[in-house]
C-alpha cells in the first residue's frame, strides 16, 4: 500500500474512534492484558516487560460528547480530564485492565483518585515523578518507584519480569523512539516533504498497538518519505509548543500548516518520544530507565528542571531548528501550559522572536478563527 494511503487510513481511525483499534486488538488477543497510559510520559517498558500492552489514553477527541463527567469536574477544568472520565463512565474503555496516571498537574492527579473510587475493578496506578533533578539521591528514589510499579504490573499480569525481559522491552522501545527521532529530524530538515499531520499520525499510532507493529509501519513510512522531493513553499518556519498533554484535533494542526507555517518541531505526544538518545541496556535495567528520566529526557512543561531556566530551553530550540517564530498552542484551562506561556512570552519578546498564542480544546470542531489568526500572523511576518 502506498504510504499516503496508510497514513490516510490511520488518520481516519484516529479521527473517528482511535480506541476502536485497541478494542479490536483485545478481541483478537483475549488472554493479553492492556494498561492505559494517561499523558504525558509513562515508562511503558515496565508494562511491556510484564507481558501486557501499554496504550495511550489521550482524551476523547472531538466526537465524544461529555454528558456525565462534567458533573464531577468543574467548568474550569480542562477537557482531557473530563473526557477521560467520560470514556470510562460510558464504558468505552472496557478493554483496559489497568490505567496509570502521573504527577503532571493537580486535576490529573485527582482524576486518578476519582477513577479508583468509581471503577474499583480497574487497577489504577499513580507515578510520582521526581521534581528534584539535582540531588544525587533522586535516581535511587525513582528506581524504587519503578520497582514498586513493576511489582504492581506483574501482579496484574501474572507474569514474571526479570532483568532480561525488561532489557528486551527497553531495546524495542529504544528502536521505536529512534525511528520517531528520525521522523522528526526528516521533517525539521525538509518540512515540504513531510507534513505535521503525517508526522503526527505516524507518531500517534505508536500509542495504539504493540511496538513491533508500529516499528514495521514506521520503517516502511520512513523509506517512502525519504524519496519525496517537493519544492518548499513560501511559508514561515516555526516551533510549536504547549500541546504536550491534551491533543488538538488533526484539522487544527492541518490548518496551521495550510495557513502558511512549516512546523519544524513540536511537543505533541512528547511522552512517547521522551528520550534524546537510547536508554542503556547494560547494568540494572530498572535503574537505567530511572536514570534516563533524569539524564536523557526532553524538556517538558510538566518537568521542572532547575538545572536550566525553562524559557532558555525554548529559545535554544528556536535557534537549533532555525525557526523564525514560535506558535504556542495551549489547551484551554491547562495550568502548566498557561503558566509556561507567561514565561515564554516575556523571554520571546525580550529575544525579539515573534510568536502567536492560540488556545484549543480537543473537542473543538470549528477552526475558522484559529486559521484566520495564523494567516494574519504569517502575513505580518512574510510582508513585514
Amino acid at each position, binding site marked *: 500500500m502506498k504510504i499516503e494511503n496508510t497514513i490516510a487510513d490511520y488518520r481516519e481511525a484516529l479521527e473517528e474512534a482511535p480506541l476502536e483499534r485497541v478494542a479490536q486488538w483485545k478481541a483478537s488477543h483475549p488472554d493479553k492484558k492492556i494498561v492505559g497510559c494517561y499523558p504525558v510520559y509513562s515508562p511503558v517498558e515496565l508494562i511491556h516487560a510484564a507481558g501486557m500492552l501499554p496504550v495511550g489514553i489521550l482524551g476523547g477527541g472531538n466526537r465524544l460528547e461529555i454528558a456525565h463527567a*462534567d*458533573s*464531577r*469536574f*468543574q467548568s*474550569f*477544568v480542562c477537557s482531557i*480530564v473530563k473526557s477521560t472520565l467520560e470514556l470510562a463512565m460510558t464504558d468505552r474503555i472496557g478493554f483496559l485492565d489497568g490505567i496509570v496516571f502521573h*504527577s*503532571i*498537574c*493537580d*486535576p490529573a*492527579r*485527582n*482524576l*486518578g*483518585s*476519582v477513577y*479508583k*473510587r*468509581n471503577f474499583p475493578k480497574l487497577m489504577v496506578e*499513580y*507515578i*510520582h515523578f*521526581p*521534581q*528534584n*533533578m*539535582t*540531588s544525587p*539521591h*533522586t535516581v*535511587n*528514589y525513582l528506581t*524504587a*518507584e519503578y520497582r*514498586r510499579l513493576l511489582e504492581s504490573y506483574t501482579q496484574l499480569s501474572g507474569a514474571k519480569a526479570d532483568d532480561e525481559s525488561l532489557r528486551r522491552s527497553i531495546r524495542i522501545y529504544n528502536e521505536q523512539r529512534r525511528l520517531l527521532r528520525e521522523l522528526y529530524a526528516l521533517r525539521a530538515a525538509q518540512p515540504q516533504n513531510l507534513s505535521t499531520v503525517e508526522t503526527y499520525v505516524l507518531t500517534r499510532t505508536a500509542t495504539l498497538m504493540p511496538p513491533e507493529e508500529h516499528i514495521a509501519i514506521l520503517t516502511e513510512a520512513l523509506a517512502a518519505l525519504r524519496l519525496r522531493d517537493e519544492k518548499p513553499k513560501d511559508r514561515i518556519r516555526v516551533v510549536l509548543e504547549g500541546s504536550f498533554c491534551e491533543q488538538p484535533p488533526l484539522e487544527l494542526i492541518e490548518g496551521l500548516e495550510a495557513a502558511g507555517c512549516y512546523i519544524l518541531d513540536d511537543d505533541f505526544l512528547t511522552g512517547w518520544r521522551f528520550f534524546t538518545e537510547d536508554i542503556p541496556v547494560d547494568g540494572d535495567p530498572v535503574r537505567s530507565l530511572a536514570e534516563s528520566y533524569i539524564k536523557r529526557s526532553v524538556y517538558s512543561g*510538566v518537568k*521542572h528542571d*532547575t538545572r536550566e*531556566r*525553562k*524559557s532558555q530551553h525554548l529559545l535554544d530550540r528556536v535557534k537549533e531548528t532555525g525557526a523564525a517564530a514560535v506558535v504556542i498552542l495551549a489547551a*484551554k*484551562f491547562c*495550568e*502548566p501550559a*498557561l*503558566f*509556561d*506561556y*507567561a*514565561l*515564554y*512570552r*516575556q523571554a520571546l519578546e525580550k529575544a525579539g522572536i515573534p510568536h502567536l498564542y492560540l488556545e484549543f480544546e480537543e473537542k473543538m470542531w470549528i477552526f475558522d478563527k484559529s486559521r484566520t489568526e495564523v494567516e494574519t500572523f504569517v502575513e505580518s511576518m512574510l510582508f513585514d
Partner: protein
Amino acid sequence: MAETTKSTYQGQMHLLQKEMMGRYFERVTRAAEQGDGKAVYMLISGNPVELVQAFDLVPVYPEIDALQLAVKKAALPFILKAEEIGYSMDNCAYVKADVGLFLGDRKTPFATIPLPSLILCNYVGCNVYLQWFEHLAEYCDGEIYNLDIPFLREPSGKPSKADIEYVVKQLEEVIVAMERLTGKDLDWAKLKRIVALSGETGELWAKVKSLTKHAPTPFDAYFDSVTMMAPLYCLRGTEDGLKFFQTALKEMEEKVQMGQGPLPEERFRFVIEGPPPWPYLRTFRDLFSKWGAVAVASTYSTVGGLWEFGFKHDPNRPLESIAEHMLEWNVTNRNFLQRYAQIRRYIEEWNADALIIHSVKSCRLFSAGQGDMREYFTKDLNVPTLLIESDIEDPRYFSEAQIKNRIDAFFESLEHKKIVREAHAAAGGAA
C-alpha cells in the same frame, strides 16, 4: 426564617495574633529594607520551617503575602499586572498577585517583601508551587532548590521507606545550602529544640481543634481557625508560637466551660472543604452566621499540617520527623480519597449536620473533582452537601447574590428537615 446574626467575638487570642504577626512582618520588612536577615521563600503546605529557624533565616511565604493582599482588598491591581505580561485568566490568582507584587517594589500595606536569598520550593502536593517558584527564580535569577515530596499513592496511604529516605537526603542538601548561605554550621542542639517547640505547638493546636467537638463549639473551625493558622506557619518552632497556642487553648477551654460559642445560638454544625474566599471573608461568614451555622471542622486548616490525627514532631529524630510531616501529615500531600476519608471522620467524630464544599477556581489541588466528592457524600453517605464556587484570591469571582441564594436554599431545607425531625421525636416521646 432565621434572623440575621453576626459574630463579633474578638478575644485575647485575636489580639495576640495581631501583635505577633505584626512583629513577624516587621522582621520581614527589616530584611527587605535594612538587609537585616536573609529571606528564604517557602510554601505553606508541610514545610521545613524548623531548618530555616535553626539558621536564623527569615521565612517568607508568598502565599501569606498573596492572602494578606486579598484580605486587604489590594490584590486586584497586582493580578491585572500579571495578566498584562502574559498570565492567563485561568491561572492561580495567588501566583498572579504575588508575581505582580514581586515584579514591582514589593511594598504592601503590611510589609515590604525582601528578595529571596534562597527559593526553597517545598513541592508538597500542589503542582502550581513548582511553576510559581520556577517563575520567581527566572525573574530574580535566584538560587532555587526543589524539595521534592513524593505524593501519597500507595494503598496503605503511607509513605514508603524509599520516600522517607529520599526526603531526608534532600533535607541534608538543604542544610548544606543554608550553611553556605549563612557561613555557619547547623547547630543540631538548636534544631532539636526548635523541633521540640514545633511538636509542642502542634500538640496544642490539635487540642484546640478537638474542642470543636463540643456543642456549642467554642470557635468556628473555619473562620476562626484561619486566625490561628498564621502563627502556626510563621511562628512554628519559636517561643512566640508556643505562647500563642498556650493562650489560645486556655481561652477556648474557658469558653467550653462557660458553654460559649461564636454565635448566640448554634443551630447547625457543618464541615467545610476548600480554602476561603479571602477578599470576602466577612461577607461569606455572615451568610452562614445568619442561619446559626458554624463550622466544626475544615480541611483548609490542615494544609500546613494534620496534627489532630496524632502527629507530633520528634526532636530525637529531627530530619525524619520533618520528612514525615511533609510527606504524610498535611492534607495537600494526601490523595483525594484520603481527603474524603478525612471529611467523613470530621462529620462523624465532630457530629456535623452537613458538608459545605467551597470550590475555588484558583486552587485545583483542592477543587478539581469536587463534583465527585459531592456525589460520594450525598449518594453514598447521605450527608446533606452544598457545593458553591468562587475564588480564594480574585475578587472578580465572588458573586454574593448567587452564593447567598444557594446557602439560603440549603439551610432552609435543613431547617425544614430539622423541624420535621424534632416534631417526630416529640410525637414519639409522647407515645
